[in-house]
Each structure stands twice: as structure tokens, then as C-alpha cells.
């Protein structure tokens, strides 16, 4: 067993870390924040271009598609460095979910059409999955696609379309056979956001991020926007969900908040004593430190399992549950440790960690129910992990 990174992996980690130190400027972060509910601004576009230039859009992709064919562990290292540095996501679902799904299930034509523009950073995707009546019960989705000559005609509605307002295309799960049992009548069709009949309506959330409702009214797309085979969409969707869950197991963002909280406690005096000296603060910080270690190892384990080709569903679920609930815990404990200061947001000069504690607290619920609710994840752990009956 090896619990340390190899020298190759350390070298890779350093390369990523040094690069991010250079390109993640305060100006970039400010622009990203200001553009949260709009399309990316010039600095962000430049940042993405630099990452694409390094070939880092497709870190774990096969070389034949322009990827670096690095291991899942190296992909995981990359994500962790990004998150620890607070660097903006350089890509939406295009690189992390769409491209891997197309490699696995796409036709040759799909691969030729979509992979090159994704890796060049020219197009990006939002996941058009959930609907107002199809959340956890995703298979009951209703958005309809009917073949009319050489075109699919799409009608329906998607919701919780994260990044929809910042990307060019929808990776949409649609119903192509209403007669079949619900899992067997679903297809994946790519829909450009600027196609006539597509309307996005923004929704603001408690965590401050913007999501969208997407309406499709007689939207027409070419027949070859279908990915893989018709009515085979469910298995594409399920395998895509697995990749999403691995990403959701990264705990580096939380680790960063914790590290900055420790520093804050070392230098803040309340009621005559440094926070770090108060026994109750020490206990809470130590407790979080233990949990963060578990989260880190869960993350690496998940990547390890993918690299050796072993099934990782229960482990991915465990990782997701643990990391997302730890998000609440770190934010919650942090706000309690800082007492009255914990309630200050980033617009207050006295806010600890520039308001990142309270922001993380409001972001956390989304991660706990998004990407498959933690209750469903626990079902998977019980059934796939422990072999309990369905």
C-alpha cells in the first residue's frame, strides 16, 4: 500500500500549483464573481485559453482525442489543486462529463463532431436533466423529442440547469419513446442554447449561484445531434453521473476554508483569549481535521479504483456523502467558532475569511441534494456496498 504521492505525481502537483499561482490573480477572481450570472468575461476567457493551451482540458482523455491520458489520480490532483487555490472552474460539463460519455458511447460521427471543439474550449455544456417533476425520479422525465425527417423536434422544460447561462450547448436527456418502460425510452441529444425556441430563465439560489429553467418550444436540431443510439440514453446518463460523483468527492475547497480558519483562530482574540487557545475551539478544529483526512483519502481511493478498473459505485457514493456533509460541518463549526463574526458576509470588512464561512454554509445544501441526493447515495452504499436487498 502506498499512501504518499509518487515523485511523478508530486511533480505534476507542483506543476499545476505553480501554474495556478501565476494565473489566478485577484482581478480574475473579481471578474469571475461579477460575471457569475452572465457569460464569462475577457479575463476568464483568457484563463481558459491558457489552460486549453497546456492541453489541460482533457487531462485524463485518450491521446487519440487530444488528451494527456493521465490517470484518474492525476486528474484528481488537478481538481484538488484548482479547488484549494479557489481557481475558477476552467470548464463546465463539456470536459468532465460530455466528452467521456461520447468516448464511451458516441458514434464515430459524434466523436468527430464534438470532441475537437470541446478540447479547444470553443464550446461547453450544461446538463439538461432535471425537470420540475423529475428530480430524484429522473427516469420519469417528460421532455419530448420526435424525429421529423432529418431533424429532432424538442418540446419540454428543464430546471436547475447549472451554468446554462454561461455555455453554448445543452446535453439534454429527452424522451424518444413514450411507449417504452420509462428507463428504456430516453435518449441524449445535444441542443444549442441559441437554437430558435430555446429560452433560458435565470433562477437565483440561497447559495448565491445562478441556475436556470430551460424551455424548449418546437426546437429543431439535426438528426446527428443524437449521441450514441436512440433510446440508449439512460445508460449514458448513469455512467455520466458516476463521473460527476467523483468530482463531488473533492474536499480541497473545504480544506482551504479549514486551513484559513485555523490561521484566523491563531490571530483572533475574543474575550481575552486567542481563539486557538480556547479548549472548545481546539476540540472542534481537531474534529474537523480528522474528518478532512478521511475525506482526502476517500477522494484518492475513488481515483485509485478507477485507475485499476474496479467498480467504484459504493465508494463514489460514500465519498460524495462524506465530502458534502463535511462542507456543512466545516462552515457550521467555523461560524460557531467565530461567534458573532460568523454571520458577516463578504461585504463586511470584519468578515472572517472574507465571508467564506457563511458562503460555504449556504452553498453546502446544494451539494448535499444535487448530483443525486445523499439519501439515494446511502441507498447505493447499502445496496451496492453492503449487498442489502433493494
Amino acid at each position: 500500500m502506498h499512501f504518499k504521492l509518487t515523485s511523478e505525481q508530486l511533480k505534476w502537483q507542483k506543476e499545476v500549483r505553480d501554474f495556478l499561482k501565476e494565473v489566478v490573480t485577484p482581478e480574475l477572481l473579481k471578474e469571475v464573481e461579477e460575471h457569475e450570472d452572465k457569460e464569462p468575461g475577457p479575463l476568464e476567457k483568457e484563463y481558459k485559453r491558457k489552460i486549453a493551451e497546456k492541453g489541460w482540458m482533457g487531462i485524463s482523455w485518450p491521446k487519440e482525442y487530444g488528451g494527456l491520458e493521465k490517470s484518474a489520480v492525476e486528474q484528481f490532483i488537478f481538481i484538488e489543486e484548482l479547488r484549494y487555490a479557489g481557481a475558477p472552474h476552467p470548464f463546465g460539463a463539456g470536459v468532465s462529463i460530455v466528452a467521456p460519455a461520447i468516448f464511451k458511447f458516441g458514434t464515430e460521427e459524434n466523436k468527430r463532431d464534438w470532441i475537437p471543439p470541446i478540447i479547444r474550449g470553443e464550446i461547453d455544456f450544461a446538463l439538461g436533466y432535471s425537470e420540475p417533476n423529475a428530480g430524484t425520479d429522473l427516469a420519469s422525465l417528460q421532455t419530448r423529442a420526435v424525429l421529423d425527417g432529418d431533424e429532432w423536434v424538442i418540446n419540454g422544460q428543464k430546471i436547475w440547469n447549472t451554468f446554462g447561462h454561461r455555455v453554448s450547448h445543452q446535453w439534454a436527456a429527452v424522451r424518444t419513446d413514450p411507449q417504452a418502460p420509462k428507463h428504456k425510452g430516453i435518449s441524449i441529444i445535444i441542443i444549442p442554447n441559441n437554437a430558435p425556441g430555446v429560452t433560458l430563465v435565470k433562477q437565483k439560489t440561497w447559495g448565491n449561484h445562478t441556475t436556470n429553467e430551460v424551455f424548449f418550444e418546437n426546437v429543431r436540431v439535426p438528426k446527428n445531434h443524437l449521441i450514441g443510439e436512440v433510446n440508449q440514453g439512460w445508460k449514458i446518463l448513469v455512467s455520466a453521473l458516476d463521473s460527476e460523483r467523483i468530482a463531488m468527492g473533492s474536499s480541497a475547497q473545504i480544506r482551504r476554508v479549514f486551513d484559513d480558519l485555523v490561521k484566523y483562530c491563531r490571530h483572533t482574540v475574543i474575550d481575552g483569549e486567542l481563539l486557538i487557545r480556547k479548549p472548545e475551539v481546539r476540540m472542534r478544529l481537531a474534529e474537523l481535521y480528522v474528518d478532512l483526512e478521511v475525506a482526502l483519502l476517500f477522494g484518492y481511493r475513488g481515483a485509485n479504483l478507477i485507475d485499476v478498473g474496479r467498480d467504484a459505485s459504493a465508494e463514489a457514493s460514500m465519498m460524495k456523502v462524506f465530502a458534502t456533509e463535511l462542507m456543512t460541518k466545516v462552515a457550521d463549526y467555523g461560524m460557531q467558532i467565530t461567534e458573532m463574526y460568523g454571520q458577516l458576509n463578504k461585504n463586511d470588512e470584519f468578515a472572517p475569511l472574507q465571508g467564506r464561512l457563511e458562503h460555504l454554509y449556504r452553498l453546502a445544501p446544494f451539494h448535499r441534494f444535487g448530483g443525486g441526493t445523499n439519501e439515494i447515495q446511502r441507498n447505493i452504499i447499502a445496496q451496492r456496498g453492503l449487498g442489502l436487498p433493494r
Partner: protein
Amino acid sequence: MRMFLTEEQEMLQRSVRKFFENEVPTDLVRELQKPESSGHSEDLWKKMANAGWLSVSIPEKYGGAGGTLFDLGLIYEEAGRVLLPTTFYSTMFASFLINEIGTEEQKSTYLSKIAAGEIVSTIAYQEPQSFHNYACYTTVARKYKDRFYLTGQKCFVANAHLANPMIVLARTEDEIGREGLSAFLVSPQAKGVSIKPHQTFGKDRQSIVEFAEVELGRENVLGETENAVAGFHIALLKATALQTMEMVGGMKKVIQMTVDYVSTRKQFGVPIGSFQAVQHHMANMAIYRDGSELLAYQAVTLLSNGEKAEREITIAKAYASEAYKNISVMAHQLWGGMGYATESDLYLWSNRAKATELSFGTRDFHLKNLARFLEETYLTGA
């Protein structure tokens, strides 16, 4: 042991609930949380005064109804249910201190004004480096002849921009140099007072107030100088206990809304409220709610009966802090996306749950109190 409301208390609860349901819809709550709003509704305040909700536990001789602290507690609970603006809580807190240490004339003046809905008030006590330890206060009032000069900084002062008077705790010295805490009645318009709003995630109005040699006279001293500690401690205990009643009201509302949601939201062809996991989460929420309710009712009842009830109050706040927050976190889990968009009202209570967890002492602060009690007093017959 009789742990149910009397008929009279139920009647009070019903009429307050009906009043708040009519007068404090969430639209008003959202309106008052906008940055351009003051966070206070004069119209609502007047109506509350007319209905008697501001004067419930103010003695009759000062224009109040002479009711019990528990009666006031029931109003706090209903207030928590609807997210009543915090001017109610800060004004009541101030009224407790006025009642404890004010001169007869001051009580007569200010308590009657509060009862009549004529003033909003607040206590400025916390400082940037001191939340619970008065010995760390750096705000002082220097005495020169018959004038005081107030200098220092207070933070997290609720509704400072609206309060008149703002009651400020400051250290003073008597003629022979003995130090003590004094309470001053300060107008926010007084020369040398500057108020800067905090930016809180819960959007309630709290400010940093700086005092630069603010000149005050004898008439600005609430009660006697160097004599505020004991009375403030009692006011703080009352405010803490009553906040747990507010929190219980909020918990009940969140649970009710969530029961309604999971009973109607369908997935897989059935209401999600029929899933075992959902029912278990809701059961846990109910346990937190009932535990908090009993602890809050106990604390306020004992206070009502004239007992100091420090043990009961600290237990109630320790428990309610965790309970309200966990209920709100679990509610978000059950509502999923539908409760996360800001069109939905759920987050309004989630914000308040976190804010009330932090104010008047976090769970750890109260557990430390209890640890001292366990070490020194518990099982000793004291």
C-alpha cells in the same frame, strides 16, 4: 408538573398567531430585508402597540398589561414563526434592563413609551474583542465634574440606526477610583456617535457604533453609575430565554412547511413523505422541536415565577441552537432544489436559524457554563 398551556395562554397564542399571520406575510419580511429598507415597519409597530403586544409584560403602572414573562414568551414564539423584524426583540431586551436598573422616573418615562409603541430601543454591549466578558470592554465614560465623555466602540448592535435611546454599557469610575459598569441612554444623533451597518448574511440590521467623546449628563445615566452588571445580567438571561421561544416558533414553522411539502411533492408516483428516509429525517426534526419547546417553556416559566433559572436557560439555549440549525439544514435536504431557489421562502428561516444560534451565546459557550456548574454545584446539595 403541568406541561400544557392554560386556556388563557392558548387564547393569547391564537390571537397573536392570527394577528401575525395577517400582518406579517413573507412578502413584508422580504421587503424589510432589502438594503434600502430600514428593516422596521412603523405601521406594523403601531398595530402591535394597539393590540397590546409590546406591553404584555410591562407593569401596569407604566402603561403595560402587567402580564407574565411567559405571556411575552408566547408572543416571541409567534414572532419567530413569521420572522418578525428584530426591532421587537431589541426593544424588549432594552425594556428588561430599564426595568431592572432604571430610576422610577426613567421606568415611567421609557417603559410607557415602549408600551405605547413610541420608541425603538436596543442595548449596545458587545465589542470587537469582547462578546461575553465585561472585563474586556474598552468603552469607557470619563467623568469630569457633572459631565461624562463616552469613548469606545460597540458592535453587533441590533437596530442601532433606529434606536432612541440606545443603551450603552461602559466602564466608569466613582470619586475614589472604584470601577464599575454603567448604562447610558444615548441618542444616535448625539455629537460623536457614528453608526456603520454590518453586512450580515441574515440581512437583519446590526451596526458598529463608535463613540468619540460623546458628552452626556447625569440624566443619561440609567439608574446609578457603576451599578449595571447585576441588572444587565438579568436582562441578558431574560433575552436569552425569550430568544429560545422565538427559535421554537421558527422550528415549528419550518417543520410545518416541510410536512406540507413532502406530503404533496411526488416522485416515483408517490409523495416523498411516504419514504422511510424522509420520515426518519422528519422524526428527528420533531424530536429537536419538542425538546427545544419543553426546555424553552421551562426556562421562561421559571423566570416568570421569579427564579433566576440560569441552569435552565443555558440548557435551553445550548439545545435550541443546535436544534433550529439542524432542522433548517434537514429541511433543505428534503426540499431539494425547490427549497433552494430564492423564490422559495425556506432560506429566510434558515438564515434566522443560524443567526439565532450565534446570538446570546453559541452552544459551546453554554456548554462551558454547564461544565462549570457540573464541576462546582451539581450533586453537591447547593
